[in-house]
């Protein structure tokens, strides 16, 4: 989750009153976070850019409806998630896997296949950009119903309840997807970070 501006409420009020500079300040604070989220949900750069633009255009048009009962960023993320899911549905068409589709609950599907210890600070084995590529690639390779929940819970650090609300899922469904997402990512990252790899 990004750092929030101290004067965020003032900026939102000014933007609502038509001050374009204040809105630009808000955009600059959050644009890369929204783009990353959109990219990781849609898995497509073109769609992510559309989501980014639509999110800020809609936010600007609907500033009057923002009640201030949540963070401005939370409100932006809600818009972005809706836009990203629409893109995903459109692109995937018949092969779309619904987010609320039940997931396999068989314990066996959770059993880790590779169990090897990692270096103490595995991220230090890679340059920053290389590490980002590895982490992004691992998320991209997951199915949308897992990567969407993971992005909101573990990257954006929304609560289980907030995530459930944003995605129209039950709390147990979010928990179940999060567990699977975490285990899948651990397994995928294993080959990069296991001890003695570098």
């Amino acid at each position, binding site marked *: 989750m990004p750092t929030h501006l101290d004067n965020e409420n003032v900026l939102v009020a000014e933007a609502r009153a038509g001050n*374009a500079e204040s*809105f*630009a300040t808000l*955009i600059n604070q959050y*644009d*890369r*976070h929204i*783009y*990353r989220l959109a990219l990781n949900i849609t898995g497509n750069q073109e769609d992510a*850019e559309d989501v*980014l*633009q639509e999110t*800020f*255009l809609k936010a*600007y*048009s609907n500033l009057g409806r923002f009640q201030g009962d949540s963070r401005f960023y939370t409100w932006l993320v809600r818009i972005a998630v809706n836009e990203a899911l629409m893109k995903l549905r459109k692109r995937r068409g018949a092969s779309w896997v619904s987010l609320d589709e039940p997931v396999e609950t068989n*314990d066996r599907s*959770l*059993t*880790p296949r590779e*169990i*090897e*210890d*990692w270096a103490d600070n*595995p*991220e230090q084995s890679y340059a920053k*950009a290389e*590490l*980002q590529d590895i*982490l992004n690639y691992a*998320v991209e390779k997951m199915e949308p119903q897992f990567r969407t929940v*993971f992005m909101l819970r*573990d*990257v954006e*650090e929304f609560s289980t309840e907030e995530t459930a609300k944003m995605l129209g899922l039950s709390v147990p469904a979010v*928990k179940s997807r*999060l*567990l699977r997402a*975490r*285990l899948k*990512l*651990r397994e995928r*990252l*294993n080959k990069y*970070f296991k001890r003695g790899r570098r």
Partner: protein
Amino acid sequence: MRCRTVKCRDVIRELSEYLDGELDATLAEDLRRHLQDCEDCGIVVDTTRKTIEMYCNMEPAPLPKDVKRRLQRALERKLRLKG
């Protein structure tokens, strides 16, 4: 007092809530006890924790310049229409 034997599959099933500190205190203690004796579960818990930490600490890359430019243009168009 409740006393239960935690198996490896219980650790996996409760892993998320354990790492998030949301597990019932007694069950968390049972899990910790299992982890002291089971090296494999210890590794899975530890590497999953590291996985979460790496993503949590990951800063998003700056917006690509052309993406930023097109976003600014789209907003300028919107502002002109509104104005």
